[in-house]
């Protein structure tokens, strides 16, 4: 006899995993369009315009182009690693999303089941995110190494040095949040920021903004975006570690970068901006009680707020890309080791005293 409960639970998990994967796979398409539009308008251009209304079908055309492109593997490349690298880079970027909560749990109507808007609530969520997120770098180093090209290798090495340096600052920022919320679980972190925007970690004065600044700078460096996009500095290194890649394999790297940007935005929201919590707690407003008391409607609200906040950060990353100059390699290292880390050490002390 099959246990119906178990079947439903398994189905729910499969549904969530498939859904998240689908979303992540398709997300880069609108994101490239948005990025190019943002770039265009910031540079007094129109951006994509020809394929479809307002160039909306441009990403589709790009995808088809990438799919149809000849798959080139350089002759002297390490072929096995060359093919493996994009996958090693992509898988962790997706795996990180297991721990990221996009909304609260709710009871599914008619069947007595709880549906959680996160795949897993690990009690070490933040550690998991940092650990798995850190794995991406292997793909980049291997890609740079296996290409057997000096531009790729230099790009890969720069990337490695940069990501390792900034991982320290990023982990410190996570420690700060853990100290403020008393939990390693991302879901608990969000719950701790419940009840209006003045409870959000960003407003945990005076250290909240400091931790956020550290986190944000480190995250920019981790996802290799301007002003820290040195691994793919087109002026000096062709395209950095993915110079030799083309077609689908190249698009895997690009996919990874966009997913990483979404991850960084989601983490910023979860850690500092109250996750799915609305800026004002609508449950305290009595007129709205009939609506907010229905758990699935309230969860949808949560999803809405989460999406809005994440979108804002994605836009912020693009905004920065087109308005800031790139840092130089040595300056990047100086910022990482000589500025961010001392700030972190100071902030830990202050946070510690505040928590006593």
């Amino acid at each position, binding site marked *: 006899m099959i246990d119906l409960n178990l079947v439903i639970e398994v189905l729910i998990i499969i549904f969530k995993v498939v859904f998240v994967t689908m979303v992540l796979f398709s997300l880069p398409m609108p994101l490239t369009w948005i990025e190019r539009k943002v770039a265009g308008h910031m540079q007094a251009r129109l951006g994509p315009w020809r394929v479809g209304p307002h160039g909306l079908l441009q990403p589709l055309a790009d995808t088809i182009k990438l799919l149809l492109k000849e798959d080139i593997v350089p002759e002297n490349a390490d072929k096995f690693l060359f093919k493996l690298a994009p996958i090693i880079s992509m898988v962790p970027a997706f795996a990180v999303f297991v721990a990221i909560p996009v909304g609260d749990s709710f009871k599914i109507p008619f069947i007595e089941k709880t549906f959680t808007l996160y795949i897993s609530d690990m009690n070490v969520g933040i550690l998991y995110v940092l650990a798995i997120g850190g794995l991406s770098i292997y793909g980049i180093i291997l890609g740079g190494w296996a290409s057997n090209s000096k531009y790729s290798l230099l790009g890969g090495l720069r990337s490695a040095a940069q990501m390792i340096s900034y991982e320290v600052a990023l982990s410190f920022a996570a420690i700060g949040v853990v100290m403020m919320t008393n939990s390693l679980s991302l879901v608990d972190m969000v719950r701790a920021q419940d009840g209006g925007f003045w409870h959000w970690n960003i407003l945990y004065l005076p250290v909240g903004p400091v931790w956020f600044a550290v986190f944000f700078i480190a995250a920019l460096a981790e996802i290799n975006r301007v002003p820290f996009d040195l691994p793919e500095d087109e002026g*000096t290194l062709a395209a950095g570690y993915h110079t030799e890649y083309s077609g689908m394999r190249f698009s895997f790297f690009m996919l990874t970068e966009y997913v990483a940007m979404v991850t960084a935005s989601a983490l910023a929201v979860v850690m500092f901006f109250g996750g799915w919590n609305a800026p004002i707690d609508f449950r305290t407003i009595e007129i709205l009680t009939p609506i907010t008391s229905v758990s699935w409607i309230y969860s949808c609200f949560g999803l809405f707020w989460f999406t809005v906040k994440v979108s804002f950060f994605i836009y912020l990353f693009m905004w920065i890309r*087109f308005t800031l100059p790139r840092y130089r390699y040595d300056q990047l290292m100086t910022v990482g080791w000589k500025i961010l880390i001392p700030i972190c050490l100071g902030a830990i002390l202050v946070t510690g005293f505040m928590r006593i």
Partner: protein
Amino acid sequence: MKKDKIKEAFAGLVGADITPDNAHRGVSAINAPRELFSQCAGAFKDAGFRLVAEWALDETPLGRGFAVCAAYAHKKEYIVVKSSLPIDDAVFPTLTGKYVAAFRFERQIHSLFGITAFGHPDLRPWIKHEDWPAGAFPLRKNFNASAKMERVKGEYRWIRAEGEGVFEIAVGPVHAGIIEPGHFRFQSVGEDIINLETRFGYVHKGIEKRFEELSFEGGVKLAGRVSGDTTVAHSLAYCRAIETASGSVVPRRAHWLRAVFLELERIANHLGDIGAICNDTAFTFMHYQMAILREKILKTNYKLFGHRLTMDVVTLGGVRVDITDGGVNALLVLLDEMLKEFERLVKIYEDNPSLEDRVYSTGILAPDIAAELGVVGFVGRASGQAGDARIDCPFTPYDEFIVKAPLLRSGDVHARAWVRIEEVRESVRLIRELIGTLPSGLFQAKCLTPLEGVAGFSVVEGWRGEIIYWVQAGRDGVINRCMVRDPSSVNWLSIEQAIKGNIVPDFPLCNKSFNQSYSGHDL
């Protein structure tokens, strides 16, 4: 007054067999026996002159042999030293012991003329690549430029820094983006550059040879295409050389209009490059904003003068197009709008700390090195070399205006950008003054043909710096030799010096801040 400095230079050579050369117009010139060629250089060096150019010529159509010339300058004093060489013994003493800039000039003479600079330590081919046959010297009169040459195998010997952990990065000749081809080879330890060697010749088009097949009239168009971004300055320098050689008079209105074109070209290029420097720090905002301003100028050029880059508007004896009253107003309105927007952008440039981190103290060209190399133009003015042909040897109409040339000594990327920002402001002011005092009358007159054997010399301050043309008339109204010296010929040397000790990612930024011409150098 004018001769004093030259007299001083010759104090040590009194009694030597040096005679004045009366075949030159627009410059003082002397004939020196080739034994004294190098000694003259020493005398000029001691008197503080810089080497402007060094070139050879084949005078067989005029019934003579080969000759080698060197031009020196000290402020407004230019002098050409010419030495005749017999065809069967085409050797002259090298100037490399006196002037660093002579290195490449003499390599060029060696590869294109087969005339050897005796004592030159490095006679690898320059501009002419190693796949040419050994005996092919294109600038000799007996070389048939229309014949097809066989391609030979050869290898260029690079000067390499070697050692543990030193590795080599090759950049170019084909670059990303719309720039000309040139090869840069670095040796670096980690990210630090310890040596850079540049190599050009990829856009060698045989321009100097082509001049010799053209009439004086036809040369104007070619001169305008020596370096596409400097078309006005090059054709102006060519025209002035011919006009000086033939003693033709140009109407005053034409002089004024030529200056307007020259300043418009300066503004357009400076705007584009200030943006491009910012773009190389990934500060794309500035790039696009500056590009918009540049585009406005080009569009106005097209509307008023029929060509976006005002190509072929300068011609022998004057200019090809006149400006109407409506055109004057349109130009003034454009300048007002442009300057207002430009000042707003300069403010953003100044106030951006991340940009400051990149452009300050990057790619420093020290003033003493700049002086040693004889660097000219905005690169020189950013490294303490106060030279501007509009001030030092002003040609009409600049002799009636006071031109302000900014001078900085820090020699970094910022200095080069800032000199250009100041020059944009100054050029706008100059154009307003020029238009305000525009003389009425003809804008073109007939240009005479120079007499056989007469050489005209002209100096024009293009946006990159001092452009020199030396045009010698041959028999039957043809050009016997046209020597073109774009500022790039000397300034390219300086980037190798400026880049040392910088890191690889700063190279594009440094290179963009110099932005020398490949085409004007390769010819």
